[in-house]
């Protein structure tokens, strides 16, 4: 088998002189033709007149009114003083709308936030730290936090808001389905499930958890990290990954892989089969692998036994040659920096984002259990 001499086979050009990438080098007539034809759909509208931007601090007291209406200003100051004294004396708890949390809107049907039942006619509600949101079999809702993202909650879902700090925003999905669109920096939005921790790495994804605690993540944009007790999976756009309680994340795969590939992988990940059956499943996976399934093989490197690892290494080398800096021996003994270098060769996102998250949030990869 080829172990990596032809290092550029089947890979997009990654150096300069790539017209598609940055118009450098020899122009590609086909791409130029497409550009010329599609240019008519290009944005060409002039800058519109936007409404006035009113910075928040201008909403403070208007001084001109105080000059024009001194009595009004005096009364307002008096009221403010009374309110301040009242707050100091009674230490009133903050209302939910002032607490860190997610706005809940677009409610269809009836759902529950904490002990309160919410219907669609009640406008925007608030989910704050410590509260649980539960939809019934008919209801759904949208959660939004301006500095974090948006979550669509499907029927039959129960989730809890665990934290909303400036560095880490965390919810627990006990069961059901959520669709997330996250714009917080990678690594800041984390979802606990009963069988894995899901870490947003700059993406949109759908996460499902069934009543047994088994989960499935499907990434539509960017990538997601799935982790439990040191067992980690990275799921780029177009890929999926299952998790099981007590097992953790399975091996990620592209959903357009063959049925034989997916079945063998599911048996390998989650069925308690004899070692001979597991070896057969690995062989099936290797025989059904296409170039993009390098994603799956990279993960399998750390999950198979020593004998199978050589087979996986050889097949992965054919699909995506290992980095020049990594030797076969280093990979076979699972040298993490070398494995990371190979991951970066696969053409997904840079794994250093994940390693940074691990360093920053070590110890958070154990799901927070329901109290």
């Amino acid at each position, binding site marked *: 088998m080829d172990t990596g001499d032809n290092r550029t086979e089947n890979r*997009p*050009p*990654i150096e300069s002189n790539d017209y*598609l*990438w*940055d*118009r450098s080098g020899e122009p590609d007539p*086909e*791409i130029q033709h*497409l*550009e010329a*034809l*599609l*240019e*008519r*759909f*290009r*944005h060409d*509208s002039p*800058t*519109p007149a*936007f*409404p*006035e*931007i*009113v*910075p*928040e601090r*201008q909403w403070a007291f208007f001084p001109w009114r105080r000059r024009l209406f001194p009595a009004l200003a005096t009364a307002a100051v008096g009221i403010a003083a009374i309110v301040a004294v009242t707050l100091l004396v009674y230490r009133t708890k903050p209302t939910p709308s002032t607490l860190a949390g997610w706005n809940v809107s*677009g409610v269809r049907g009836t759902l529950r936030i904490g002990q309160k039942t919410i219907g669609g006619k009640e406008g925007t509600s608030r989910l704050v730290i410590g509260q649980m949101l539960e939809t019934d079999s008919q209801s759904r809702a949208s959660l939004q936090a*301006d*500095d974090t*993202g*948006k979550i669509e909650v499907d029927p039959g879902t129960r989730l809890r808001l665990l934290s909303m700090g*400036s560095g880490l925003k965390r919810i627990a999905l006990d069961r059901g389905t959520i669709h997330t*669109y*996250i*714009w*917080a*920096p990678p690594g800041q939005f984390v979802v606990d499930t009963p069988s894995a921790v899901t870490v947003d790495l*700059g993406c*949109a994804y759908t996460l499902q958890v069934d009543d047994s605690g088994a989960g499935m993540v499907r990434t*539509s*944009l*960017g990538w997601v990290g799935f982790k439990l007790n040191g067992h980690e999976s990275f799921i780029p*756009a*177009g890929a999926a990954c299952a998790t099981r309680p007590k097992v953790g994340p399975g091996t990620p795969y592209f959903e*357009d892989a063959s049925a034989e590939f997916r079945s063998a992988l599911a048996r390998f990940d989650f069925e308690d089969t004899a070692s001979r059956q597991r070896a057969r499943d690995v062989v099936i996976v290797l025989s059904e692998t*296409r*170039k*993009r*399934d390098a994603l799956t093989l990279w993960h399998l490197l750390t999950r198979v036994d020593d004998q199978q690892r050589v087979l996986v290494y050889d097949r992965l080398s054919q699909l995506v040659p290992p980095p020049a800096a990594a030797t076969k021996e280093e990979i076979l003994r699972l040298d993490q920096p070398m494995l990371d270098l190979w991951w*970066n060769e696969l*053409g*997904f*996102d*840079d794994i250093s984002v994940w390693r940074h998250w691990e360093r920053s949030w070590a110890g958070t990869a154990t799901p927070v259990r329901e109290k």
Partner: protein
Amino acid sequence: MGTSDDATWVAAARDGDRTAFGWLYERYARMVHGVLLAKVPVGDVDDLVQDVFIRALRRLSTLRETASFGAWLATIARNVAHDYRRGLVPEEPLPDDASDQEIQCRTSGGDQDCPSAAILEAVMSLSETYRETLILRLVEGMTGPEIAARTGMTHGSVRVNLHRGMEQLRAKLNAGPSRVRPEQEKS
């Protein structure tokens, strides 16, 4: 100009400087247009571009990572497109001066008289990830590094999306207009 410039302009826009927001519009309008064009009918894109920037304007004070303005704006654009598809953004009738030819071209698929519409249709039949990046490159005329800088995606992701998307587009176009249909990706 990089993200540090964005942070400066975002800070100025937050302070009420409409010139600064106009600069951000000039810099990001093509990206927003491309993101929307990958998801909604071409006739509605211009209106939605404005909707995206209005939303951004209203929420600008909530953006903590000002250097991530591009990624934040791209996500707002994807949300606006998502809302549009769910019917939350009301569809307005096309203006009277809308080009009949353009509308016909948009709907004619493989019509030989409208090759640009047929190619756009072929692009739209690709998976969403490749579609968005290819539209930013081929329609909006942005380079790969520009796409990465504006959307917050990594160079690696953009490069892969461009090359894989282009491979798929070539396959569809070579298959002929009558076979330009959505289909599963095969590597």
